[in-house]
Every structure is written in structure tokens, then in C-alpha cells.
């Protein structure tokens, strides 16, 4: 690796010094609370005003068993996966397409600065605004969407669209995609811009077409950034909360209940089942860790290969540069 070349041992201490603030903040604000939660999952802590907790001595895993056999939890897990997959795929495709267009040096899209700025905008608006607006749009029996459907003759009587599970899920998928494709696009663009322009130039010289360039050069070179996007989206998606919560509170009939919302309900809607909520959190933690771990393992191999290629490229460049 390139830093071996320059990494003298007398500088090694800066590696520790520069990493220290991160470690301290992590230990204080993340690790301690995590451990605390894990502990709660094994106790009988529930109900408001209860002062202490006892470990479940007769069956230490009782909360975990309850959660895993809970039909609502299983439903919510399926929903979460479905919602995430269905919003991630269009989101990444749209983001990739736009990123490719905006970084394409040949077609040189005019006003692309403005477009970039505008397309990210949906991410700025607060979830509460979106929820209020969409509920109003799909109002029943009177609402703009029903008006349009009836005017176009698609339906005679107003339909309670939000009671349809597929519509409800579709709306959430749409909102999630719409809110996040701009942000994904920006990440991907900065990934593409990190690619050495000489690679593109040589591709030009070789007469590679746009599509070829994209699949053979752009995509492989932003693999790490793509993985990063995948992992952060996975973590964010499996914790999806605000839109399902604010839009229909997991309804209709639990069709948009996500695991985070389930956990929230365990802890809040009446019974204050902290122990069950903590157990469900830890289960989600394990699932996310496994999924993200798999993704990283796949990526790291590529990363290593990339690093070697990159090293060669850089060496070549440096020679030429001097």
C-alpha cells in the first residue's frame, strides 16, 4: 500500500492521536448506551414508574422468544425488507442515471448545477410536511387524487386509496425514493469525480461509447462508493420510521408497519414494554450487522484489488507528473 512508502514510524503516534476524539466520543455516546440496551433485553423492565429490574432467571431469553414468535414483528420485518428493497432499487437506478448524465463530459448538460441543487431539495423538507401533504392528496372520499381519477373516468365512485395495502406501501416507497435519490446522486457524483480523468480520456481515445464507458469504467471505479451507499441505505432503510409513522402509523392493517415502528409501539403505546422493545432492537441489530457484514466482505475484496490498481495508476501518474 502506498502509505508504507511514506509512513515512517515516528509519525505512527499521530494515527492514535488523530483517532482519539472519535474513540472517546464513541465510547461515551454509543457503546455505553448499546450495552445498556442489550442488558435490558434480558430483564423484566416494563411499565411506567417501575423503579428497578430483575433478570429473568427462569428463562433469560424470554423476551427474545416472545418477539420472534410475535406475528406483528414478523409482519413488520417483512414490510421493512419489502419497503427498503422497493425503494432502494429505483433510487439507485435513478441516482446512477443522473450521476452518469451530469458527469458525462461529452453531452455537458447545461444548467446541471441548478438541477443538482433542485433534485436534492426533497431531502430538506421535514417528514411532517410530506406526511401532511400526502394524506391530503389521497383524501377520501374527497381529495385531489380521487378527483383526478373520477374526472378521467377511471372510477365512478371515490376509492379509499389509503386503505389499499399496495397503494399505502407504494406511496411510502415513492416518498422514500423521492426523498433520497438526490442525496444518493450527490454521493455517486463525488464518487465518479474521484475517478482519474485520464482513464476516461484513454477510453475516449479507444473509442468507447457512452454506455460502454459507464459500465466498463465508471461503475467498477465507484464500487466502494456504491457499497457505501448500499450499506448506509440498508441501515437507514431497516430503521425506516418517520414516514410510515407520520403517514398512517403503520396502517392500513399493519401493511406499512416497520420494525422500528413496532419497537416504538412496544415501548410507547400503553404498556411500556421496554424489555421487549430492547430485545427487538437487539434482534434488529444482529440482522443488520449480518447483512452489512456480508456486504462489506464482498466489498473489501474488491477494495483490495482496487487499491492495487490505484497504486499502479498513481505511481504512473507521479512519474509523469514529475
Amino acid at each position, binding site marked *: 500500500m502506498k502509505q508504507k512508502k511514506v509512513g515512517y514510524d515516528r*509519525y505512527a503516534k499521530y494515527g492514535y492521536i488523530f483517532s482519539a476524539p472519535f474513540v472517546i466520543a464513541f465510547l461515551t455516546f454509543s457503546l455505553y448506551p448499546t450495552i445498556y440496551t442489550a442488558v435490558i433485553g434480558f430483564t423484566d423492565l416494563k411499565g411506567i414508574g417501575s423503579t428497578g429490574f430483575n433478570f429473568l432467571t427462569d428463562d433469560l431469553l424470554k423476551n427474545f422468544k416472545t418477539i420472534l414468535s410475535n406475528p406483528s414483528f414478523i409482519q413488520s420485518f417483512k414490510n421493512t425488507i419489502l419497503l427498503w428493497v422497493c425503494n432502494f432499487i429505483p433510487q439507485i437506478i435513478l441516482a446512477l442515471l443522473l450521476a452518469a448524465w451530469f458527469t458525462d463530459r461529452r453531452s455537458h448538460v447545461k444548467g446541471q448545477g441548478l438541477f443538482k441543487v433542485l433534485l436534492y431539495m426533497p*431531502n430538506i423538507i421535514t417528514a411532517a410536511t410530506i406526511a401532511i401533504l400526502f394524506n391530503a392528496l389521497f383524501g377520501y372520499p374527497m381529495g385531489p387524487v380521487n378527483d383526478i381519477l373520477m374526472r378521467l373516468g377511471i372510477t365512478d365512485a371515490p376509492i379509499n386509496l389509503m386503505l389499499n395495502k399496495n397503494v399505502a406501501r407504494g406511496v411510502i416507497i415513492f416518498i422514500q425514493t423521492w426523498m433520497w435519490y438526490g442525496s444518493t446522486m450527490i454521493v455517486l457524483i463525488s464518487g465518479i469525480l474521484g475517478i482519474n480523468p485520464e482513464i476516461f480520456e484513454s477510453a475516449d481515445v479507444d473509442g468507447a461509447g*457512452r454506455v460502454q464507458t459507464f459500465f466498463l469504467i465508471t461503475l467498477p471505479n465507484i464500487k466502494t462508493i456504491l457499497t457505501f451507499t448500499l450499506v448506509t441505505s440498508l441501515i437507514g432503510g431497516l430503521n425506516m420510521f418517520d414516514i410510515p409513522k407520520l403517514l398512517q402509523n403503520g396502517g392500513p392493517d399493519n401493511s406499512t408497519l416497520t420494525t422500528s415502528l413496532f419497537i416504538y409501539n412496544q415501548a410507547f403505546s400503553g404498556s411500556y414494554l421496554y424489555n421487549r422493545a430492547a430485545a427487538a432492537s437487539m434482534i434488529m441489530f444482529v440482522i443488520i450487522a449480518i447483512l452489512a457484514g456480508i456486504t462489506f466482505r464482498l466489498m473489501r475484496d474488491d477494495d483490495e484489488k482496487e487499491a492495487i490498481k490505484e497504486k499502479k495508476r498513481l505511481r504512473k501518474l507521479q512519474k509523469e507528473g514529475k
Partner: protein
Amino acid sequence: MLKTKENTALKVVIYVVCIFLAILSILPFWIMIVNATRSTTEIQQQAVTLIPSSYMMNNLKILTGKSFDPITGFLNSLTVSIGATALAVYFSSLTAYAQVAYNWRFKKQFFSFIMAIMMIPAQVTMIGFYQMVYKVGLTNNLSMLILPAIASPSMVFFMRQYLQPTLPMSIVESARIDGAKEFMIFNRIVLPIMKPAIATQAIFSFVASWNNLFTPLILLTNSDKYTMPVMVSLLRGDIYKTEFGSIYLGLTLTVLPLIIVYLLLSKYIIAGVALGGVKG
């Protein structure tokens, strides 16, 4: 010639798609701002329209009458968002730099560790967060919304991925030869190189921090410390009469500073884009 035709066709497609998406982006903002000028009754009878009405001052009166203090909220939100964003980008860059520039014994393990904790859903880590904050008596202290940003594993990951192929170690070395201290090199040389990455991450972080409702809602019980989203959420708290007009106005006031900050930073992104184009 064929090539030109193809180019034109592609350009048309690009512009049509982009303009469509741009409209889709602006529309909700427009409806929100329009609704901020309409009375609650008007909104309840017709939720979506593009034509403004004349109730803005009235809505503002309801807003301020309900212990909504935009100045205080704005200052608190600004403190939290700027503080959290600055800490997050600075320390994430620093941690990433430690990964890329130095050769130390536990470097690889530390990176694996960062990747591992990136997978910890924040919901898990936050469960006990409140307990700790309460124990040290800092519930109404804005720093508790700022300091955790120092450890942002996914940002460190992003910064490292960005820095690794782009940092020219030769510059670092020649700076060392010129006698620059390590810390100075990071501040003077490395940070400017990272501008595009920093600007992007800063926007993400700032938006997330500004719109964050639930953490402040739980940590802050003193109305002098409320952030904008908390204030707006209090407007909705009245279950018998929901003043939609003033809620929309509140939401608009909340998002306006964000738009301004975003536009300022986005200029930086566009500039940074050009920077990224020539480096290498």
C-alpha cells in the same frame, strides 16, 4: 452526423427527465408556502392549491401567540446544526486522515472496528443515551445534541474512501520537509483537498441535524432551548383544533433557513465539482 442526432435526442431526454424531477422537487415547497398564507378552514376544505391566499399575518399571529418564538428557535437550531456539522466533518476527516496517512499498529483493526460500529443502528445506541445524559444533569444542554456527532462512523468511512485515492502523499512529504507540523499539514493541506467531500457530507449532516425532531423533543424540556422542529411540533399538539395554516407557516419558517444554508453550501458543491474535475 448520426452522432449529433443521437446527442440531441439524449439531451432532450435528459432535460425532460430533469425538468420533471425538478418540478416534483419544487412543488411540495410551493404548496407548503402557499398553505402558509391560507387559513386553516381554507386548507381543510381544499388541501392543495397553487394560489396563495391572504391569511399569512393571521397565521403568524396564531404562531407567535402559541409560545412560538422563531428567533430563539432559530438560534438554538443554528447552534446545534452548525456545531454538530462542524464537529462531524472535522473529526471524521481527521480520523480518515489517520487511516490514510499514517502507518500505525492497530490501523486495520481500527478500520474494521469503525465499519462494525457503523452497523449499530442508532436506535440501539440511543436507548441508554438519555439515561446517561440525565445522570450527568445535562438534559437541557444543547451540547448533548452536538458532541455525539464527533463519532460519525459512516462519515469517516466516506471520508476515507474519498481520501485514499485522492491524497497525494508527495505533497504531505514535501510539507514535512518544509518543517510543517502534522496537525498543521492536516489543517492547511489535507482539509482543502477534501473540500468536495466535506461540502457534501456537511449538507447531509446539517439537514439531518436541523430536521431532527425526536432527540431534542426528549432532551429539551426548557422552552428557552427548543429548536425549530420542536416548536412546530408543539403547534400540532392540540388535539381539538389543529391550526393547519400556522403549522404550514411554522414548517415554512423551519425550512427557510435550511434552504438558505443549503443554497450557500451547494454553491460550494458546484465549485467543488470543478475542483474534483481537474485534480488527480
